[in-house]
């Protein structure tokens, strides 16, 4: 009896697997897919959950109104519906590969990138198959050829260049300011350790001291690394950290008396992977003086049209489950980019003949000054050689628990390989 149950279970599983392995028959309704691989488990779980929520909301909005955004006049073709297609890749290269093939077989025409391991595994394939893909990360793998992965942040080195620009502008010391990297132990985190970055800092008039590595998610505070900064009289620490790394690091720094307003004067500047609007409420006064470049405007600043739009969508589609994570904005930007690429491609080619390469060449590459309602630092523009959508870096600082915009600096395009 137990055996027959076992056999039955095995049969059901086999059928499920088999049915899922073969692509579903072509759908009669005209549906275009957006979305792609998501990392819903693993270190980027919370960020990705917010991104996915934004995708779902935006798809519903476009399907209902056929508009691209309240502030835009273009219309999405009325006979086509959008559907969000996603799979959890656990931020693993091996899984990303089979997921990509599956979604491609399902008829997806574009893709998205959830993080470095996924990007590195898929880069060549995306290029071969002509897929365009916005990316949640901003590592230099985006820049290196072939350039079919797009970012709506500046890439990390440009973020840090903007912070360096700001810091040197307000430096009052008599000696050269001393700068070091305090960055996390991941592909993205270590991607800033390139000679070009060092050269740029030197050019600005910094003295470069060295770099310290902090785990992506530290299990214990990085006291040693912070002590090293203190020992080496560093004035500005630059790096890539996600929130889970930044919070304990800054907390420990404050405990050690390190900060712009504390005994030992040092400023910590991080890239946009450490979203300030999440950091600020959790840290409050403790995070005083923390600088983040390329971040998004906070979700409660409804004077910004894009944020107002995000809030309206959330209220409308899931009033009981509010997504408070700032990466919702990232998801919104990705969804807007993907849908815009589809819309542009549809103008050139009828739905039936659309291929990924056309979405890339007539869609992504043709995006000019996409108005994101100020969700991104500048409107987004992409092209064959231009994968950084924005031209400027917004730099924010946490001051007395409030996010203060320090200004906008142009992208320096540091990383050239």
């Amino acid at each position, binding site marked *: 009896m137990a055996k027959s149950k076992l056999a039955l279970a095995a049969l059901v599983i086999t059928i499920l697997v088999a049915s899922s*392995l073969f692509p579903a028959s072509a759908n009669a309704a005209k549906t275009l897919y957006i979305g792609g691989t*998501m990392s819903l488990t693993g270190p980027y779980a919370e960020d990705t959950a917010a991104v996915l929520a934004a995708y779902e909301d935006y798809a519903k909005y476009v399907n209902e109104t056929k508009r691209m955004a309240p502030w835009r006049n273009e219309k999405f073709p009325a006979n086509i519906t959008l559907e969000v297609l996603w799979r959890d890749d656990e931020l*693993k290269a091996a899984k990303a*590969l089979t997921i990509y093939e599956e979604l491609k*077989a399902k008829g997806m025409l574009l893709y998205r990138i959830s993080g470095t391991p996924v990007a*590195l*595994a898929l880069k060549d394939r995306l290029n071969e198959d002509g897929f365009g893909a916005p990316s949640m990360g901003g590592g230099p793998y985006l820049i290196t050829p072939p350039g079919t992965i797009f970012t709506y942040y500046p890439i990390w080195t440009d973020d840090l260049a903007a912070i360096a620009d700001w810091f040197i502008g307000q430096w009052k010391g008599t000696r050269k300011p001393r700068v070091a990297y305090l960055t996390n132990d*991941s592909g993205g985190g*270590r991607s800033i350790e390139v000679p070009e970055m060092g050269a740029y800092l030197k050019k600005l008039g910094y003295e470069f001291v060295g770099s310290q590595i902090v785990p992506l998610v530290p299990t214990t505070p990085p006291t040693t690394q912070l002590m090293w900064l203190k020992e080496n009289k560093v004035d500005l620490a630059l790096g890539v950290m996600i929130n889970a790394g930044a919070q304990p690091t800054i907390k420990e720094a404050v405990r050690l008396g390190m900060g712009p307003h504390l005994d030992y004067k040092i400023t910590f500047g991080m890239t946009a992977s450490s979203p300030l609007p999440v950091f600020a409420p959790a840290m409050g006064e403790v995070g005083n003086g923390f600088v983040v470049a390329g971040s998004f405007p906070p979700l409660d600043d409804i004077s910004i049209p894009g944020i107002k739009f995000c809030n309206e969508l959330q209220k409308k589609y899931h009033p009981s489950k509010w997504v408070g994570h700032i990466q919702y904005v990232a998801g919104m930007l990705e969804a807007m980019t993907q849908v815009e690429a589809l819309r542009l491609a549809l103008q050139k080619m009828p739905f039936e003949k659309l291929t990924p390469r056309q979405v890339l060449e007539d869609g992504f590459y043709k995006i000019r000054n996409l108005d994101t309602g100020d969700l991104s630092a500048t409107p987004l523009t992409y092209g064959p050689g231009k994968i950084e959508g924005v031209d400027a870096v917004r730099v924010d600082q946490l001051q007395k628990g409030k996010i203060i915009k320090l200004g906008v600096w142009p992208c320096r395009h540091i990383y050239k390989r």
Partner: protein
Amino acid sequence: MGLRCGTFRENYAQDMAIFRTRLHWGVLFAFLIFLFTCPLFFSDRILTVMTMIGIAIISVHGLNILTGYCGQISIGHVGFMAVGAYTSAILTAKLGWSFWPALPCAGLVAGIAGLIFGLPSLKIKGFYLIMATIAAHFIIIWLILQLYNVTGGPDGLAVLKPKIGSFALNSKASYFYLVMAIACLATSLAINIVRTRAGRAFVAIRDNDLAAEVMGINLWSYKLQAFFIGCVYAGVAGALLVHYYGFASVDQFPFMDSVWYLGMLIVGGMGSTAGAIFGAVSLKLLDELVTIVGPVLSKIVAAQAAASLALITRGLVIILFLIFEPRGLGHRWGMIKAYFRLWPFSHEE
């Protein structure tokens, strides 16, 4: 090894043969023909899944020899895959070697790394050895990051697809052939290793290392040989993996994957070559299944909850296998075969 009723062996060579009857050979050829015609009627997606399964099979064969046969539990297998992967990547991308000599070199270097980290196995066993292999994983990954000039450190290395003459194995189908050919070769070599002198020594060490030594087996030498062979397999699998990705990066070799390779051994059945294949196939398919089911479930529960069910499912599968089928699918397969073989009359030896 039983045979179908009415089949008799007349000499020792026949007794040792794996494929004896016409039926055996027929099934083997049918399977091989099926395998190598797959690209004709399967989509890229299925080929990708099968290619990944093929690479996993190669890797699990190595782990099976080391852990399943020799009893030296390793949770650092992925670290050795990384060694092989980077060896091949450096040889081809930096030194301009062809893929074909680079592949055996990848195996060899990974095997040597295995020897180094296998050295403590002489003095220690059980969880002490597990610790050594875990340490091996992290030290290897750290070293790869340190050797920035050769390995590209965090940036990784772009790797070219293998070429035969001027024909690059770019398509899914051609790489599928490559992986399957190597997987078949790896399987047959593994079968032969475990049924001859070295294989018996491995099992002797696993089942009773003290008696094995008294019976003339040099523990040190054979434990190291097991590490070497196991890591050669890992190295080859790792090299195939990065050439498939087209890129080598430490992120492609996460620690938890080692655990899943062990999981494949458990599900398939330790110390059985067929088990290694069953394990790799079933856990990889399960992985595909839970990935696909996630978004479906997300219509009922939150997306993230749905995704986390994948983790729970995989953990539960291992737990259930450990409790209810500790000898794995390979054993179950043997019983099914035995049932049909003995039908209708029992003929046993």
